[in-house]
């Protein structure tokens, strides 16, 4: 008789783990998946192109319902099927609508929640996050009838949202608390180049700004945003894109050890040996996650253990960032600022929209920022991951792999 595997979360991390498991040990488990969204599994990181109109929802579906059927996976999808309780004693999960399901192994992949800044007016209509298809649809409908959008957060998601809304014809201002856009991925030069480029495309910016309140139009809908410097911007749509928080409530309620996320070992096992967790909901060796690459790596390791091979260990590597705005290429990985022991190689050609920076320590790459010309990003990443000694390559390193053919 097959063991029962239950997966909570029909997102990218969870389904990646299932895919890996299916290929590693296709007959070991009977799999049941609970998802709060009423779709199959889709590629969340492609929501930006959907918002821009470059892709449709169908384009970004990874696994449709047919796939679940084909692989004999039971899918419980929709708001009613959100799991509300894990009964570790009886090894079962219970959904909002009462659906119960026994597990031998449980995989928690509940992802994260967008962080909502708790300012006055944050709960008004027209104040949304940018997290799922629901949010995208909402933005699309606003763009058809409304004029002013304000996006809070000059990070990857915020900029992608702003770009999409501009494409959809809205007047968009991005509010960023730092003076540099993407300050967790770019240094000031690259951030500045990016800002210039986005400004060319029509995005407005209010940098180093603090939002103090959102104003009610009298009907429970946002109509303006207020800032610490006294400025007030008209606002029909306010998108909060200031980061995510691991969604570990369910696990915590079930008594699984959590800190900033569900704490897992190098094998992605929680403190309960029957329960594994992957994705944005976890905390591994102090780190939490927001990019897709480590999630996939976690899924692989987790599947390796669930399948009984038990060989792999998860190790966090610096992961690369890309901005999904058509025509803007940027790449960032690792420690791109450096310290007094590191050395910096820089190439810049602002009028050609190119900037590159490599941070080196002990003759190895520890960080890279590429703007404009990112074709060597993957190569730098592999040099970084493999800790390649670049001493001999140094003169041409920044000009790319082509010079080392």
């Amino acid at each position, binding site marked *: 008789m097959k063991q029962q595997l239950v997966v909570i979360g029909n997102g990218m991390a969870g389904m990646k783990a299932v895919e890996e498991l299916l290929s590693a040990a296709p007959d070991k488990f009977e799999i049941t998946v609970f998802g709060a969204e009423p779709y199959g599994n889709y590629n969340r990181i492609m929501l930006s192109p959907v918002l821009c109109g470059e892709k449709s929802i169908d384009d970004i579906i990874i696994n449709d319902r047919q796939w679940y059927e084909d692989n004999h996976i039971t899918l419980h999808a929709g708001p009613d099927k959100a799991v509300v309780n894990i009964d570790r004693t009886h090894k079962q999960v219970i959904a909002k609508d009462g659906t119960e399901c026994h597990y031998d192994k449980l995989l928690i992949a509940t992802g994260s929640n967008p962080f909502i800044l708790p300012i006055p007016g944050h709960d008004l209509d027209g104040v949304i996050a940018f997290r799922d298809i629901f949010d995208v649809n909402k933005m699309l409908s606003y763009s058809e009838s409304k004029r002013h959008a304000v996006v809070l957060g000059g990070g990857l998601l915020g900029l992608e949202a702003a770009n999409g809304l501009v494409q959809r014809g809205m007047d968009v201002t991005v509010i960023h608390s730092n003076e540099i856009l993407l300050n967790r991925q770019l240094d000031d030069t690259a951030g500045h180049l990016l800002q210039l480029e986005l400004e060319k495309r029509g995005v407005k910016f209010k940098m180093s700004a603090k939002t103090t309140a959102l104003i009610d139009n009298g009907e429970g809908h946002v109509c303006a945003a207020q800032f610490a410097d006294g400025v007030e911007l008209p606002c029909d749509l306010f998108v909060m894109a200031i980061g995510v928080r691991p969604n570990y409530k369910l696990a915590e309620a079930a008594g699984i050890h959590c800190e900033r996320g569900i704490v897992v070992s190098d094998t992605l096992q929680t403190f309960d040996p029957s329960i594994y967790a992957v994705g944005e909901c976890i905390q591994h060796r102090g780190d939490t996650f927001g990019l897709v690459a480590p999630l996939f790596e976690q899924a692989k390791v987790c599947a390796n253990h669930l399948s009984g091979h038990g060989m792999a260990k998860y190790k966090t590597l610096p992961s690369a960032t890309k901005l999904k705005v058509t025509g803007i290429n940027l790449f960032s990985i690792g420690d791109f600022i450096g310290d007094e022991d590191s*050395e*910096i*190689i*820089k*190439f*810049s*050609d*602002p*009028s*050609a929209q*190119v900037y590159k920076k490599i941070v080196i320590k002990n003759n190895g790459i520890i960080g890279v920022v590429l703007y404009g*010309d990112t074709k060597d990003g993957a190569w730098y990443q592999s040099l970084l991951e493999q800790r390649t000694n670049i001493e001999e390559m*140094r*003169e*041409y390193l*920044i*000009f790319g792999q*082509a*010079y080392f*053919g």
Partner: protein
Amino acid sequence: MTVETFEIPVKEVTDVQTIKTTCAYCGVGCGIQATVSHSQRTVAVKGDPEHPANFGRLCSKGSALAETLDLSSRLLEPQIYGRTASWDDALTLVASKFQQVIEEHGPEAVAFYGSGQLLTEDYYVANKLMKGFLGSGNMDTNSRLCMSSSVSGHKRAFGSDTVPNCYEDYEHTDLIVLVGSNTAWCHPVSFQRIRQAKENNPNLKVVVIDPRKTDSCDIADLHVPVKVGSDVALFNGLLAYLYQENALDQDYINQHTEGFDQAIQAAQLDAFNVATVAEKCRLAPHVVEIFYRWFKETNKTLTLYSQGVNQSSSGSDKVNAIINCHLATGRIGKEGAGPFSLTGQPNAMGGREVGGLATQLAEHMEFSEQDRDIVQRFWQSDNVTDKPGLPAVDLFDAVANGKIKAIWIMATNPVVSLPNADKVKQALQQCEFVVVSDCVAHTDTLDLAHVKLPAAGWSEKDGTVTNSERRISRQRALLPLAGNAKPDWWIITQVARKMGFENAFPYETPADVFREHARFSGFENSPEQRLRSFNISGLAEITDEQYQSFPPTQWPIVSSDALQDINNFENTKRLFAEGGFFTPTRKAKFVAVEHRAPQNAPDADWPLILNTGRLRDQWHTMTRTGLSARLNQHKPEPFVEITPADAQANGLEQGQLALIESQWGKMLARVTVTDRIAQGEIFVPMHWTAQFSSHSRMGGVVNPVVDPVSFQPESKHTPVRISAFSAAWHGFILSRHPLVLDGIDYVVLTKGNGYFRYELAGKRDVKNWQGHLAYQLKPYSGELDWQTFQDQTKKVFRTACFHEGELQAVLITGPDSHLPEREWIGSLFDPARETELEADERMALLTGKPPLGTPDVGKIVCACFNVGAKTIENAIKDGKLTTPQDVGKCCKAGTNCGSCVPEIKEIISAVNS
């Protein structure tokens, strides 16, 4: 008030014209066929197939003459104290100032310093004014630096300054001995002719006697790497050997010579056997033996020599040691046999003919009472000088110590070319009155002039020149005079007239001057009166038309029958085969000579010997060749050749900068480690000036030592020391516009195709490169965009700037001399290409390498066709080529002047090994 309008008559000029003229460079004196478009002011040159010096060949320098005609670097208006002046004001000032100095201090206080670049007509007028009317012998020329030892040697042996042989002898000889002559680079067309002769005549052997293994060794059957300055011992040894072996022509000696006994005694005393010679000359005995045996066994022996013989404190003795061997074997003035001095400059010979050296009076006459009397009567002047003037080095010493107070320098650059050149510079700086006539606007010398006179350039000059084989050729104007420039003979004539000598200087055309010169050469020139070798009196009545169409002809031209049909005139190709020398006895004189070591010996403080010389693609101080991008590619920087052992001993590496110091001065040059030079010796090229380099003037280092007979400086032997120049950074800039780079220790400028190239190094970091460049480029380009590449830890800083997409400048710096190649970046400035770079080119710019897919031709080897080393390598690999001919067929390299053939051979052997 009415304004009159004039109809300007349009002169009918056929726009495109073919004009025959003579090359501006070396003493080979190649004929050129120039196609001139007057409306475009463009000239295309090719070799004149009918000229007997070159039969259509041209070297890289000659081929590039048309690239040096740009007016941007020309001096176009007279200047007085830096301000533009009228000709009348400038000439009046020169005349009155010279007059004033003569009145106050006597004629010895003035001097002219001319050049082998002057035409014979220019020389004649200058010499006549100074020696005939101002009454001073102080008219010397830069020929002093290159030819005067040959002149002295000739005069001592033959009684006259006469070259006995002709170029045709290359094709008739069985042994060519090249002494102190890198013919491959310095007389490339002669070299090609010898190479061809060797191919046609399998018996022809070539011996190269040179301390360095130069490119001329490419065709050598034997290289004799003689110790610098020991040639006298080598040829004394040869004379003793020939005597010992009974290989002398006793009949010739008896009939046509004097002084053999003293000469052979001196020779035997100096070098009585091969072992002694080998020791004195630092040679392997068997090498000496082979050379001597070949010489002995080969009747048709031609000894070609140039600066390696002449530029020595025993230069005259070297010449006579060589001539002694030829006299003793009767091998002189015969088909394929004779001593043959190769002159360096296009008209060194013409200058010697008119008497343009301080040690000559005029027309092959000297300072005897008889000679002076002849000259006085011919010129109808009672003020002809009765004593020699000061030769170059002494002359500038006299400027330095204030004895000479007014000097007029014509068409030459002594601040660069003279030994102890820093002293020459100081001398001119403190001189009361310095006049310089030149065709370019800036030379190191011109920059010190009080009066600057714009002279006609090569393409505008009209007159005659004489090459190494006594052949007088016309140099014809291709283009009208640029700006307000005037011919030198005209300028001097006007000054003479303003000084009150209008009757003696009636010339209106160069033909007027030439006729007088021709007449003078025959004046009282007979065995009964005062017999002289130089005699062209047959041309005394030459008409303007005949002068215009005068074909290249060797002197002497005594009979006026020549003018009847000059084209069928029988040249006197060779002289002295049957004696007939110009000594009082009509016999040649053996000169007893003994080896003397160069004057300054190396010691512990100055352990190395500095040798100097020319490069293939440059001429003198680069005022012309420096303008041709093509010519600048071969050797774009001053370098110093040093053996691997000496390099190691002095802590030097290939490509590094070295500081070369002598007791007289210092210079910087890039190290080229080579085994082509002997241990203990180093070599630097002579060409770089302050116009092109900050600290690489060779002249400042060279010792001011001269030959006691010829007064020619010993430029081939100066004791020096060498050390690494430890720069904190190295770099280069290629810029579309000229830059001023003061305060940087090492700066060398080369003109590229569409750019100026600056090679740089410095001890102190430059803080704000972009600021410097932006400031300097602003007048040309306005606002700039910058691309930068920086690796601060490694001291790498590279930047490029653009104006509206057009590349303006590229700066590359690094911690050492291992910098990217310059060729590809340079090609991006090519005016013929799109100014905007392709995106991939722009991204690759600061690597110095083309983006993938664009071929990198490598360092330019063939300057004629612009073929790079990598192109040649690839052709060799792809086509499995083994000979330079194959390479030539494949990519044209080496098929024009052929002077890169040795390099192509090296590439072939490198690729195939």
